[in-house]
């Protein structure tokens, strides 16, 4: 399964938000945190990334099947994911702290019965990401590092805001998934969620800002009528070859009335950092800004 990429995030964007989303954060901070956990299992890749970013990496003993970043996770045991968590393997790792998706409420109850503390992931925008980093810091005994990390992300985002201030804000379409080699089943960012917020910070106007959803599947008609000036196609991985990128860019030529297509402003960006709601979102926002304002006068 080479093609089984870590587009997981998009999952977050598309799936989790719909159902589990906002309801359940019983963060560990609310539970009696007697002492810092020593053995952490994380089923959420974005949160695994946060753990490593705040220096809790050495406490992590198991991760989800989709975890690939940072490189240290590759050596760790994989224990399933959102739909197929392997409770037995998780228990066998003797964790004292398990990070779960909000929808995994049965699993949460199971761990509660086993006396294991849980931390429930809440999916949302950039603020939620930063709050989650702070909460994880508090729960794992890395408050200072977490705070530093949050300041770092906020600082970089502010720097991007300052850089794009006063510049024209082009109308941007952010595509994160579609059928290869055709413009069918195009999934784009709506006006909610971290991708939308990153886009706006990077100095773009999301053409689907009016649709209050994380993901929208517009028809070709809507794509034409929204007339974006810039199209950003982000992919977690998979589209690595130059030749393929050129081919995929060519697909847009059938909608030549879109200004972005006419003016050759369809940008392909590849990398899981672009779509993971984790500590690297500042880096992704910088990349968005660079693409959106490419060639603009300084």
């Amino acid at each position, binding site marked *: *399964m080479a*093609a*089984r*990429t*870590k*587009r*997981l995030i*998009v*999952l977050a964007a*598309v*799936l989790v938000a719909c159902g589990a989303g906002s309801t359940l954060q019983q963060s560990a901070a609310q539970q009696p945190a007697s002492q810092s956990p020593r053995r952490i299992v994380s089923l959420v890749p974005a949160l695994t990334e946060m753990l490593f970013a705040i220096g809790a990496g050495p406490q992590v003993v198991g991760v989800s099947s*989709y975890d690939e970043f940072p490189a240290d996770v590759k050596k760790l045991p994989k224990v399933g994911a*959102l*739909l*197929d968590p392997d409770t037995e393997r998780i228990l066998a790792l003797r964790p004292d702290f398990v990070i779960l998706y909000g929808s995994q409420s049965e699993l949460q109850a199971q761990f509660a019965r086993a006396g294991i503390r849980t931390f429930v992931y809440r999916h949302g925008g950039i603020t939620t990401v930063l709050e989650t980093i702070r909460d994880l810091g508090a729960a794992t005994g890395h408050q200072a590092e977490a705070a530093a990390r949050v300041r770092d992300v906020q600082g970089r985002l502010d720097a991007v805001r300052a850089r794009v201030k006063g510049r024209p804000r082009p109308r941007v379409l952010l595509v994160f*998934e579609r*059928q*290869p*080699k*055709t*413009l*069918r*089943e195009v*999934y784009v960012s709506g006006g909610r969620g971290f991708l939308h917020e990153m886009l706006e910070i990077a100095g773009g106007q999301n053409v*689907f800002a*009016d*649709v209050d*959803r994380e993901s*929208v*599947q*517009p*028809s*070709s*008609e*809507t*794509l*034409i*009528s*929204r*007339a974006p000036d810039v199209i950003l196609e982000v992919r977690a991985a*998979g589209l690595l070859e130059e030749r*393929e990128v050129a081919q995929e860019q060519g697909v847009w030529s*059938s*909608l*030549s*009335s879109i200004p972005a297509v*006419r003016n050759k402003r369809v940008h392909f960006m590849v990398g899981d950092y672009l779509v993971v709601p984790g500590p690297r979102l500042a880096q992704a926002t910088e990349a968005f800004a660079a693409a959106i304002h490419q060639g603009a006068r300084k």
Partner: protein
Amino acid sequence: MNEAILVDRAHASQPIRTRLALTIAGFGTLALLTCVLAPLVGSTQISLARVFDRSIPFEQNVDAQIFFVARLPRVLAGALAGAALAAAGVVFQAMLRNPLATPFTLGVSAGASLGAMLAIIFGVSVSLGPFTSVPLASFIGASLATALVYWLATSPGRAMSTSVLLLAGVTLNSFFSALIMFVQYIADFAQVYRAARWLMGDLDVGGFEPIAAAVPLTAVAFGLFALLPSSLNLLSLGADAAAVRGVDVVRSQRLAFFSASLATSAAVSLAGPIGFIGIVVPHLVRLMVGVDHRIVLPASTLFGAAFLVACDLLARTLLAPVEIPVGVVTAMIGGPFFLWLLVRKG
């Protein structure tokens, strides 16, 4: 439609040629009107004057692009898929002598779905002429399923039996569905979501190439359909009765099976497995024009085209700019209708 009923009742005693001409004229007008009007309506307001204004270069003419690139291919895809599925429904119902048969009963769509799932989940990006990977894979899946069902129903060396065909098809359907579940389970979320979306049907084909891929296949299927109506009339009385009246039963059944499977495969590879067209349309048409397949088959073809184009019009405008998958719309209309039919028969 009402006009068609009146025409039919008034001329029931007329020779078949006249009835056929009147039916085609009535249902043809309906289909044509739907196909002409549908591209004029959408989520965006466009001006027809601008659409056909040659003084604006096409690259800059937003209205023309919406009309020619977004709406027209979509309406044509709807007409083609609707016609193919409705006609295939008529043929399967007659051949299997089962009013609840659909184009998807014999495993064709499950095969197509499995093919499409594999292409989506393994990220296949092979293309062949106007076929891109997902339509190609679903067409191959449908063809393999057709061949497999036929082989099961005729081996070892016995004549094709519709009851074995039905059992083999239904079993294969479940088996493929199980494989689809397995494939989805091992895939990651974004792919599962795309795969699930494919199953809901989509006519936004984004250009004429996908239609160009489906037209030749559908044309062959309809060429074969043209040979069928008289034998279908006799086959629906039962195989023995048909044989007594001089029908080569096995040959006709084989022809019916392969042509309807081909039409279904072409439609599903173009637009996904859009449900209920193949059952709602034939039954509605029978209510209007009676049971003679020489009339029902062409009438269902034309009505199917109009019906799916109309459903897609609802799908793309009701919640614009967000769309409702067209398969959801046909199911919302078709599901209750199907139940009504079932209760009425019972």
